[in-house]
């Protein structure tokens, strides 16, 4: 329940909070929901990315964090953290 609430808060924070706070919420939520950084990164670029501004920076950053977290999780033994 809390991870889902954190995820929704991260999404809402894209338009409601200053972006450094969004980054903080995403980093808190990411260990529970690894796709949150990617989703929030894409959403941030959907809302704010200026057209023709080169690479969508926050999508790339989100994807990088998501991949990193998935890699870390794949190395963890079953049952250490979580349910």
């Amino acid at each position, binding site marked *: 329940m809390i991870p889902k609430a954190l995820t929704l808060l991260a999404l809402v924070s894209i*338009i409601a909070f200053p*972006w450094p706070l969004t980054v903080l919420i995403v980093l808190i939520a990411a260990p529970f*929901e690894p796709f949150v950084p990617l989703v929030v990164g894409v959403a941030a670029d959907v809302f704010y990315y200026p057209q*023709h501004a*080169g690479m969508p920076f926050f999508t790339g950053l989100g994807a990088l964090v998501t991949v990193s977290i998935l890699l870390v999780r794949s190395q963890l033994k079953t049952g250490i953290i979580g*349910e």
Partner: protein
Amino acid sequence: MRRTFLAKRNALLTTKGVSWGIFLILLVCSLLFLRVLAPNAFWKLFTPVFGVSHIFSTKTDAFFDGFRDTAALAQENAQLEDENHALASQNQMLTQKLKNVTALLSVHETKETIPGLLAGVIARPPESPYDVLVIAAGEEDGVIVGMEAFGERNTPIGIVTSVLKNVSYVTLFSTSGVATEGWVGNTNTPITITGVGGGVMEASTVRDANVSVGDAVFVPGPGMLPVGSVVRLDSDPLSPQVKLRIRPAANFYGLSWIVVRATGAVPTVFATSTLPL
């Protein structure tokens, strides 16, 4: 021997967790498709949401400001009160003038270039991680790429870099990598103002230029328009150059309305940016 069946290979990455993640990705992808395929409809849909969130973010900003140094806050508060008193009387006069000007602009609305076009701000920093304003005026209102945007007291804030049907993007001078030619100080020393992101700009000049903290920084427009002021000088004794930290004259975080207009000469050089004019 009975074999234990391990239902979950990873306690963190459950099937339920993956499906929730996939749901989020689908959600954001649908937003992305809407933004790409029907950008105008997208912004029409989300403009009220941004309106509500702006009210909310103003309150949260006030909350986070409470964590700043109290002495600096008290000083700033006193300064703002003084400004407030001075502006209050001016405000009444301008309110009436604004009505007249707005009416005038709407009367003369054409597809041609409009000298000054009032536009509401939909999204702004710091919610926007890019130093970009999204404004509620677009192609239909006469906005064209390359128009200059002005904040309060005719302060230049950036350049229109993208125009949709009813929405436009203004790239602020403080956007990282955006370079603008300008002048600083009483001697009008030429400088190249570079955006470093986060509403901050910087420039370099020779030490002999005698630039000091508080000196105004100007950019070309109709004449010279103040874009900010020097708040800090960083100098290395071994270097003949001095680095100027510039605070914009306009508070990007509090902008609700701006004016866009074609200024004739294009004042901004997107030297290191890929942003087109």
